[in-house]
């Protein structure tokens, strides 16, 4: 169980999140929507230092080596091809095999990763995040830039990841792709958790008209 307890995150003078408390069971896919979702993911990953509160698992701080983060807009070091980026991960962990992911998310391997279009960069980001086999996956906008058929592939993959023992936290600005994928959804806003929905409530939530016509505030 990942426990987020009374978390307060400040970006400059603005308090992005305040008093956020969540209990996230393992081996499940947890959705995050609303304002502050990206900040929360980065705080879990350790990139943002909370002003107050804690993020723990079984009473211990989360270890970054057990996590992998997919950025909303993945970016790469100019001069490296997609093949190089994958090769570098394989250099440090010989066991990983990107073949299955490459079939699901095709990427032009010999093009410079930094100059790929947004969709291909997203594909590469997904491959690099998932191929490392981390236990906790933090996915920021995993459906953004994907074509409808790839969104379906991603949904199937997320279901598979949740069932094989990974804990997935995914932040999304849209609810529609989360339906049938997430075990629960936390709706953030006004600095805290506005609501929590179970998986069977997501369809109803979307139909009943979520804030901003199914789209939540960015970030």
């Amino acid at each position, binding site marked *: 169980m990942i426990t987020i307890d009374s978390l307060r995150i400040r970006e400059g003078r603005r308090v992005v999140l305040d008093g956020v408390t969540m209990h996230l069971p393992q081996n499940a896919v947890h959705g995050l929507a609303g304002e502050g979702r990206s900040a929360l993911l980065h705080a879990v990953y*350790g*990139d943002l230092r909370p002003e107050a509160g804690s993020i723990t698992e079984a009473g211990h701080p989360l*270890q*970054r*080596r057990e996590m992998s*983060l997919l*950025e909303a807009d993945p*970016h*790469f*070091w*100019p*001069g*490296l*091809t997609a*093949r*190089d980026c994958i*090769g*570098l*991960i394989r*250099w*440090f962990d010989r066991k990983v095999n990107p073949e299955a992911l490459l079939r699901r998310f095709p990427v032009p391997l*010999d093009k*410079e990763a930094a*100059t790929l279009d947004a969709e291909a960069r997203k594909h590469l980001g997904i491959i*690099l995040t998932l191929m490392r086999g981390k236990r906790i996956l933090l996915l920021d906008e995993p459906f953004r830039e994907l074509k409808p058929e790839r969104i379906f592939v991603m949904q199937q993959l997320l279901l598979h990841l949740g069932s094989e023992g990974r804990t997935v936290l995914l932040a999304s600005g849209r609810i529609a792709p989360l339906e049938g994928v997430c075990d629960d959804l936390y709706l953030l806003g006004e600095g805290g958790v506005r609501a929590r929905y179970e998986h069977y409530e997501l369809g109803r939530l979307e139909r009943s008209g979520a804030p901003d016509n199914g789209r939540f505030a960015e970030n």
Partner: protein
Amino acid sequence: MPAPRAKHLHTARWIRPELLAGSPEWTIGLRRHLTAVWFTAGGVVLCILLPVAGFPALYVAAVAVSAFYRDCEPLEMLRLPEMNASRLLVRKVLTAWRNYFLLSAPFALLAIVAHPRTAWIAVAWAPLAALALLYAVVAKYVRYAPERTSRRPVAERLGIAGFLIPILLPLSLCLTVSYALRAERNLNRYLHDYD
């Protein structure tokens, strides 16, 4: 129309990180400066024809390698080895030494074969080249900020010059020690989780 950077990449895709001990700096550096690398290799061969000039030319090449360590990588790439700051710095330095000495070994052998009487210069060349590479690595990580290409401070440039101008060498040595300590502190901000 492809950007110049992409063109370089197209012509030098055979340079792979796997061949360079997983070093993105060397991969990108060799690709971007491929023409300069070929000219350097040609220049070193010409210098080897002259007595005494071969090893100094190889040493200048080691100092020039600091150009590979100018840009800062994205944070995810820095964290890829999952090492703490000191271990990462050691790994980066060892990788730089490995790549440099492997690439320069044929030239060094040629210089020894061509002028056996000047082979003693290698005793000075190896440690000085190793020191120049160590300086290049630690100087980069002192000013490391994710994905930033910052202008090199004057002190850092003087430090590089010190490896070519003997009177400034003590400054370079002092800066190497200072940068090594500060680089570890700077990297700890990003890698403290990997202790």
